[in-house]
């Protein structure tokens, strides 16, 4: 079974001797950098309150337990417990999911990828347009809170679109995550209210960092080749 443990862009998680506390990482751009597509106010609440709460609450939950001092990814897999979730799973996974989400976007993002990533998308979805449609549909039809993902499935050497509820992420499903969009209502309610499809269109057209997705794909393939 290909292991996705340890797969992350986060520098802190590649070192086994991590600081005992999980830290709140800042997005790789100022909070107003995604305007007008995602407002500063949204980033202030989404990162400054929601993401921060997940970090603070996780640290409170794991202090003095065997999870204290483990990497974030190890905590996630451990507390997922094959679907029988431990109480700290939600916070742990949501910390990771939000790190991954901020890094999936950039100012002046969106559009179409190039190179090997584009070739694989065309190979596995038929065309970029069909991938985009499948990704947006998954994101629009995830009922309640959750996420939509582009992932790499190492066993089949294939790209897939999946959707997950609440805090569940591809790490626990044995896929390599490449791109995500947050469809918890807090992610879009200030800017789009109930109009999730409009949020998804703006995300695809203006926010996706295809550079980040390409790097993740290269890393995933390299890691898959080692296992």
């Amino acid at each position, binding site marked *: 079974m290909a292991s996705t443990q340890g797969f992350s862009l986060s520098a802190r998680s590649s070192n086994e001797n991590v600081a005992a506390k999980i830290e709140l990482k800042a997005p790789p751009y100022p909070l107003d950098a995604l305007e007008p597509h995602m407002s500063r106010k949204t980033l202030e*609440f989404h990162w400054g309150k929601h993401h921060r709460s997940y970090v603070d609450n996780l640290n409170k939950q794991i202090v003095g337990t065997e999870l204290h001092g483990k990497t974030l990814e190890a905590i996630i897999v451990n507390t997922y417990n094959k679907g029988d979730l431990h109480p700290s799973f*939600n916070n742990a996974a949501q910390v990771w999911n939000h790190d991954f989400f901020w890094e999936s976007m950039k100012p002046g993002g969106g559009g179409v990828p190039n190179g090997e990533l584009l070739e694989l998308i065309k190979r596995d979805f038929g065309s970029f347009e069909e991938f985009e449609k499948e990704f947006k549909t998954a994101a629009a039809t995830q*009922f*309640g809170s*959750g996420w939509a993902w582009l992932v790499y499935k190492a066993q089949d050497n294939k790209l897939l679109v999946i959707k997950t509820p609440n805090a569940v992420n591809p790490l626990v499903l044995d896929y390599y995550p490449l791109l995500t969009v947050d469809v918890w*209502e807090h992610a879009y309610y*200030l800017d789009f*209210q109930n109009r999730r499809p409009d949020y998804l269109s703006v995300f695809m057209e203006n926010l996706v960092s295809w550079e980040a997705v390409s790097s993740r794909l290269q890393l995933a393939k390299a890691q898959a080749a080692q296992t």
Partner: protein
Amino acid sequence: MALRTLITRKSPISTHLGFRGLQTFSLPDLPYDYGALEPAISGEIMQLHHQKHHQAYITNYNKALEQLDSAISKGDASTVVKLQSAIKFNGGGHVNHSIFWKNLAPVLEGGGEPPKASLGSAIDNHFGSLEALIQKMNAEGAALQGSGWVWLAVDKELKHLVVETTANQDPLVTKGPSLVPVIGIDVWEHAYYLQVFLSFSSYLNVSFLAQV
């Protein structure tokens, strides 16, 4: 007297008979203006919540029912089964929100008054006090992961009040066939997010009190 009661009793679920007698649903009117619950819940939230979110559940529920009707007529068992989640999501959304609107009231019409009579004493008997019940419902609401509802319910079999939660739009009955909702608090983010300056625990408090 009984007949007058029957005529004037407002059903929380508005229906009409469509083609081939399939009963479909329409958005029930609120018994108060959108702004009538301010400052507890803003008019902007009430309007979006009612006209966009609740309406969407009804639209999609009706669509799912039509598809179900068609699948049943054709004996298409796998489509019937496949439609169950859409029916639970959207039908549940309609059922739950219909209860929610009916249980809220503006302050001028008694919203926020502590419960009296049998409900008041049942709460005291089972939870110790109204404050204890509020605290318990707040804790359950805050602990709910993702989207869902917090309920005060009567367990008809055990014959006492219970606090329960449901995920997404699952109606209370999915937690137990003998549960009857008394108060439901919508803890989907759409229910309170536009009042971000209002903390979540304040929303739970005001939403509970508006319904008793």
